[in-house]
């Protein structure tokens, strides 16, 4: 059944909004509403006309628990857990360190090739240099290199190269970590981009630890970086520090 008489339609819409249309009549009206844009406009007009009545009520402040419950309900579903975060994380995982050393060993040749074949880079290092070749654990292929001059006073400048044209997932960040020694918690060196060459300024107080670090790792974090100060996302690349 359809209601066609404009006056009847207007009155049904009014009583629907007012709240006096009850039971089966209300349910039928809601069915008509779905397929009748004109009726929906009529209802919207009545909502607009009557809504100011709500302003006559004294406001009632809700209990703080209501907002807490709303926040809980609208929170995005928890992300897939990072590998064993509750027990410290990947840096305490023996398998990670084993893979870490293996990858590094297999990259020794690459490392020397890289240094020898890039005289421009080498010219920036009058003395010793620290070099880390970070490999993709899936393929063992080098994916990133990081180099800096150890022992210099002031803020260490990391020269970062991202190999190949890599892309970052939207709303994520790449965070570079220094791993002081096997089993110790990583310390953030800052966020990096996918640019092929870039420089990362490290706080001066990390200098000593950086020069003595066992390795570096890069993890995928939420936009803006790790919310906890420790890696929370998967490690894309990692490598051991080598002095040359």
């Amino acid at each position: 059944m359809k209601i066609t008489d404009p006056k009847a339609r207007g009155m049904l819409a009014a009583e629907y909004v007012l709240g006096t249309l009850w039971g089966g009549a209300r349910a039928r009206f809601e069915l008509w509403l779905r397929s009748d844009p004109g009726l929906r406009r009529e209802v919207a007009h009545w909502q607009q006309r009557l809504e100011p009545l709500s302003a006559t009520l004294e406001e009632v402040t809700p209990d703080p628990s209501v907002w807490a419950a709303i926040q809980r309900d609208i929170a995005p579903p928890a992300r897939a857990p990072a590998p064993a975060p509750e027990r410290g994380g990947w840096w305490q995982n023996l398998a990670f360190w084993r893979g870490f050393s293996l990858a590094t060993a297999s990259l020794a040749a690459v490392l020397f090739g890289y240094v020898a074949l890039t005289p421009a880079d080498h010219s920036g290092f009058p003395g010793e240099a620290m070099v880390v070749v970070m490999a993709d654990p899936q393929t063992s292929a080098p994916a990133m290199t990081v180099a800096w001059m150890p022992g210099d006073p002031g803020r260490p400048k990391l020269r970062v190269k991202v190999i190949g044209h890599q892309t970052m997932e939207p709303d994520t960040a790449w965070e570079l970590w220094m791993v002081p020694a096997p089993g110790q918690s990583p310390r953030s060196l800052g966020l990096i981009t996918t640019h092929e060459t870039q420089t990362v300024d490290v706080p001066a107080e990390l200098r000593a630890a950086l020069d003595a670090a066992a390795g570096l790792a890069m993890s995928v974090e939420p936009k803006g970086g790790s919310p906890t100060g420790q890696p929370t996302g998967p490690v894309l690349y990692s490598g051991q520090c080598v002095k040359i």
Partner: protein
Amino acid sequence: MDGIDDLMARCTLRDQRAFAELYQRTSGRLLAVALRIVRRRDWAEDILQESFVSIWHHAPEFDRVRSAPMTWMTTIVRNRALDWVRRPRHETAEEDLDGLAETWVDEGPGPLDRLTSEAGGRALAHCLGELPGQQRQSIALAYLHGLSHSELADHLDQPLGTIKTWIRRGLEKLRGCVDAIETGGRAT
């Protein structure tokens, strides 16, 4: 409510801070709306919670051309509250409505005064003021307290048919009056 438009626009872009501010600005009024209808604080707060979760999820579909944000949010809260009191075997909360009936039937200062602070409210206040007291009272009690025709008949001690007539005539006059003001306001 100035600024609510902007907050709602930001909510459609999933801005949680804007949503928190929207809640802060409007939850007092919306809880009052739910509380008047269901008449129990814990039920009203449950409805408020569900409504705001729904407001967050449906914000991207909100169409500001078709309705003002406050109207849209009030509709969500009222519909949930009305569904609540109409569900079968509904446990009712007792509240004394006697005093409230009088405030709407009298002329002069009363709840209508509080309407004049908002643009849409001024037209409604003026037009409600033009209605005979019993029509004004029936409409206000139905809208704010979610009373049905028969509840109004019991409460106002009138035959059901009389209540239906009051409401219908009152709504017809209200529509003509409010639309005339709004059309006139737009023309000037």
